[in-house]
């Protein structure tokens, strides 16, 4: 297949079009705006709906409306936009309609900055909104992987009637890489049997997230948990590098995982038996695979572009079987491979003790 040099945001937009997305609603925010701009140009060419909403609040509610018709629909934004979308995300989850949301993460909190970050991890794995629900969260580490995951995201959203987040960071969104785009899939014509669209020759359908009777709302919640269990059983995704004989394991997702891979390769060249475990599905989280690794390795090093948000999940998965160390950069800073390599060296020269508090040790190192 032909490879093209494409910017991440553009590649994700075109991947969505080729996956048959029928409607896009969004609001400009750096570092994702090229995604919206590509949609503004290409969606009308394909005869599909594009609209720049007046706010992220409106955008997600437009997504909600379109999703209720059974159309393939998406939006994209960055952290501040996810915060505004939290309301609509929860309604979409409560109504059990599928939607795809791309979060191109930037430095925060607050207005933060527009540099790459992974600070929205906790926000997106809980779906940002109120109530009990479980969004599927996929994290690419390259433009090609982002393209591939966008295509999958729509199928998964429809399979489980769920929200699927694709969380890239500013560097995935902004950098250009060679990519192979998939063949275009035509938009689906037939609508699912729950969708609204006019009660022509059938009883009226109602889609709502309102269940005034607690016993009925509990049934809905239990159904959401059941779907979540199915996702946990079927949709765990991760990548393993040099783990077969690894004594030390570096864990990181997205860009942090990719930077860590360079460090792992450099350490391997020095003869250190180290490998990389890169979660691709952040929810469901690859808990069991990490637990198995914990049972057969000497130490973990978690690398993130935040203050250790995934670290908590890794520690929960490891169940104290292995000492864990942490290295993170925050506020839009991206670690260099050399920084991670230095941490790998330290892992070997000063092995962590089981009693070591990874975040406290890292913080002391950062603020000294």
């Amino acid at each position, binding site marked *: 297949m032909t490879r093209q040099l494409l910017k991440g945001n553009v590649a994700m937009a075109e991947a969505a079009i080729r996956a048959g997305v029928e409607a896009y609603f969004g609001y400009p925010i750096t570092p994702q705006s090229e995604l919206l701009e590509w949609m503004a140009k290409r969606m009308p060419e394909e005869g599909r709906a594009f609209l720049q909403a007046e706010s992220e609040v*409106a955008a997600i*509610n437009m997504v909600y409306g379109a999703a209720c018709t059974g159309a393939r629909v998406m939006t994209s934004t960055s952290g501040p936009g996810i915060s505004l979308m939290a309301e609509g995300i929860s*309604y979409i989850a409560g109504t059990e309609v599928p939607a795809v949301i791309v979060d191109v993460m930037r430095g925060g909190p607050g207005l933060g900055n527009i540099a790459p970050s992974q600070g929205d991890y906790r926000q997106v794995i809980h779906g940002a909104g109120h109530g009990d629900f479980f969004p599927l969260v996929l994290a690419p580490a390259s433009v090609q992987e982002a393209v591939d995951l966008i295509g999958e995201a729509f199928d998964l959203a429809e399979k489980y009637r769920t929200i699927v987040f694709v969380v890239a960071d500013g560097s995935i969104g902004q950098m250009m890489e060679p990519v192979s785009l998939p063949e275009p899939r035509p938009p689906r014509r037939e609508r699912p049997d729950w969708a609204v669209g*006019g009660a022509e020759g059938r*009883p009226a359908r*109602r*889609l*709502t997230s*309102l269940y005034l009777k607690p016993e009925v709302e509990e049934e809905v919640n239990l159904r959401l948990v059941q779907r979540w269990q199915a996702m946990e059983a079927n949709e765990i995704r991760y990548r393993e590098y040099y783990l077969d004989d690894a004594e030390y394991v570096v864990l990181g997702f997205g860009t942090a995982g990719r930077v860590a891979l360079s460090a792992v390769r450099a350490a391997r060249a020095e003869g250190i038996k180290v490998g990389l475990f890169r979660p691709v599905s952040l929810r469901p989280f690859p808990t069991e695979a990490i637990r198995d690794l914990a049972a057969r390795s000497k130490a973990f090093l978690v690398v993130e572009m935040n203050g250790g948000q995934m670290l908590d999940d890794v520690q929960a998965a490891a169940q104290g079987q292995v000492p864990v160390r942490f290295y993170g950069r925050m506020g839009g800073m991206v670690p260099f491979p050399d920084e991670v390599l230095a941490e790998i060296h330290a892992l070997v020269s000063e092995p962590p003790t089981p009693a070591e508090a990874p975040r406290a040790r890292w913080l002391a190192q950062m603020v000294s």
Partner: protein
Amino acid sequence: MTVAAPTKPKTTLKMVYQRPEALADTPTHYCPGCTHGVAHRLVAEVIDEMGLREKTIGIAPVGCAVLAYDYFEFDGVEAAHGRAPAMATGIKRVLPDRIVFTYQGDGDLASIGMGEIVHAAARGERITVIFINNAIYGMTGGQMAPTTLPNQITTSSPGGRDVAVQGFPIRMSEILATLDGAAYVVRRSMHDPANIRKAKKAIRLAFEAQVRGLGFSLVELLSTCPTNWKMTPAEAMNWVRDNMVPAYPLGDYKVAPELQKLRV
């Protein structure tokens, strides 16, 4: 739910009044003297008369009409508070040949949903909005609304709305009529039969505007809330006439030329 066939009277009398097909055979939860039931019926009659029932999608608000989708016999969805125009936009943009309308109260449309309604109108979104203005928050128990009149007592303005502190009422029809995307914006009242007939005609024209693709259409309906106004139904009707109509003048604020010559 299934629709019961209208019962045929066992007399030779002519049927002159029955439940519209678009109105579900479901008892509503509305209070005695509340005009939501009247507004629902008018919408259902218009949809029947225009033959739109099988292509209509209604959007319920957050407020007393939150369960409106259960009271109509066409497809319906339930929006987040104030977001019905955005949700309607999402539906209409992917199904442009369907009829999409929102049904919103004054808190929903003129307070929390101010952004969504203004931008839907500005875009000329081809949707219809039924705007119920009763100058109070009904469902949450009678708090001050953006349309609460000066000195009107509510549970959150217990000494009466003090405009020096709580600001002034908002006249939505007048605001929205200034936007180029609006094709039809009118205010009517439901406090007596003559006004109810005028309200129905306005609802008909609003849906005609949508069918003809003319742009955004909205009918503001001055309505009652006897429970939270602490009045009898009859007193509430008179209160609309004596207090609301002077503050919210009835009239046509925007009527597209194509609708001006239309006879319905």
